[in-house]
């Protein structure tokens, strides 16, 4: 198992955001976690990244427990996040934003090829490379956040609500790229989404998160047929 989360708890003061979540992700898998607003999806990813502390339970990455490993050390170990609302560096240029992805990279060489590769995924970034990131649209900022994470040669990519606030055409484009990265490059991706239909569509397995706990799990195509999922998340 590349990633194993066992009985994970997250607390914000009195609020119990994650209540014993367990999940696993194998090397090369694309797994999605769907759930409503406030179900604890972002808490889950932020806890795996180390941004919020685990209040109980274990996180194992490559078989090693990482509960006490600092954020930047987890990044150096290969975990990368595409944060909710992108969190690009607003006053740095697009190019400088991309360079920041290289800090924790395990393979220090090949910057030029890697830049060319992300420019081929999202050509708009090359057109705007000298602009401050704050001048990009929401969708472009998401593309920049994905590319920035990719430049760090991730072993596991955590993607937090990448579809939020994007127009449908862009959502398709971004999901297509994520799916392609998984299929063609074998990139392991843990995708957290409110957009259930799109994320069930590209993932092999999924978890349904409800009020901090896993309510359902299984192959994505089976969940697409599930009566409860169809009613609660797909509006069918």
């Amino acid at each position: 198992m590349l990633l194993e989360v066992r009985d994970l708890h997250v607390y914000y003061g009195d609020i119990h955001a994650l209540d014993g979540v367990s999940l696993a992700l194998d090397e090369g898998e694309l797994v999605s976690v769907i759930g409503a607003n406030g179900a604890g999806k972002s808490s889950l990813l932020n806890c795996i990244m180390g941004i919020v502390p685990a209040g109980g339970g274990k996180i194992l990455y490559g078989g090693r427990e990482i509960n006490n490993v600092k954020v930047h050390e987890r990044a150096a170990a290969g975990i990368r996040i595409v944060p909710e609302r992108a969190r690009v560096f607003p006053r740095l240029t697009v190019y400088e934003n991309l360079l920041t992805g290289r800090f924790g990279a395990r393979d220090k060489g090949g910057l030029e090829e890697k830049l060319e590769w992300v420019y081929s995924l999202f050509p708009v970034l090359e057109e705007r490379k000298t602009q401050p990131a704050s001048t990009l649209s929401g969708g472009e900022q998401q593309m920049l956040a994905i590319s920035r994470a990719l430049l760090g040669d991730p072993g596991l990519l955590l993607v937090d609500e990448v579809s939020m606030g994007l127009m449908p055409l862009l959502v398709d484009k971004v999901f297509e790229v994520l799916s392609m990265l998984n299929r063609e490059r074998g990139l392991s991706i843990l995708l957290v989404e409110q957009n259930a239909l799109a994320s069930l569509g590209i993932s092999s397995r999924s978890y349904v998160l409800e009020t901090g706990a896993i309510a359902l799990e299984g192959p994505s195509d089976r969940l697409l047929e599930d009566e409860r999922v169809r009613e609660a998340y797909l509006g069918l």
Partner: protein
Amino acid sequence: MNEYSITILTFISIQAIVACGLNVIVGYAGQVSLGHAAFFGIGAYSSALLTTKAGLTFWGALPLVILITGAIGLVLGMPSLRLREDFLAVTTIGINFIVESIFLYIPFFGGALGLGGIPSIAAFGTRLRGANYFYLCLAFLAAVVFISRRFTKSWAGLACFALREEETAASSMGVSPIRFKLMAFVIGTAMAGLGGALYAHLMRFISATDFGFTMSVSMMASVVLGGVGTLWGPVLGALILGLLPEIFRPLVDYRMLLNAAILLMMIRFQPAGLLGEGSFLRGLFGRRGGGRP
């Protein structure tokens, strides 16, 4: 130029060196330090002691002075930089008061009488005075600006900018927050140490009150006035703050009031400073002298 103007310009270039150091900490790494004068003082006292008591020349002492100031910056920065911004500001004020009292109350540092008999600087077989001392300070200022520029173009500089903008996002890209904040703090305090040494050998007599909190505020005013995080901002700020009381004599007695007023006015009307993004000067001259936003 007469002797008087040269003295004023020498003071201004020293102030600019120290302000450039503060700019690395506040502008590039986004860490608010209100105790920068402490390191200015540590530089001045180290150089004074090394030349009077240990018998070194200015040139022999200078590398040690920079090393000592940077090392003390490292030791004091390590616990402080883990704090949140507002706590850091208060902590650095505390550091300033503690360092000042150490100079004031410990006899080794001359106590209330200060340290005198500091030798002047010799170069090429002559003692540097007047215009020559000014050129020396100007050369060091050029070096400090050059190093600042190199820093902004380096990976470490990029790491600092990323931390300044979005610390969580930066650390999840693999940037160690404490490591790069400390690096900026050490570079900034070492620059203050250099300025301190130049000040000590210019005055040839120093006392603890030269390095109090008011000096820290005036450093901060220089940086904010010129433009936080810009390359030339601290130099311009030091120049304006140094010249204003000379041009308008009555202002001399109200220096502190002037510094505070300028700080408040800038934060209200031109938060990015005279050379910062969106300032009226930049509008006039285009995108020049900016370094980086």
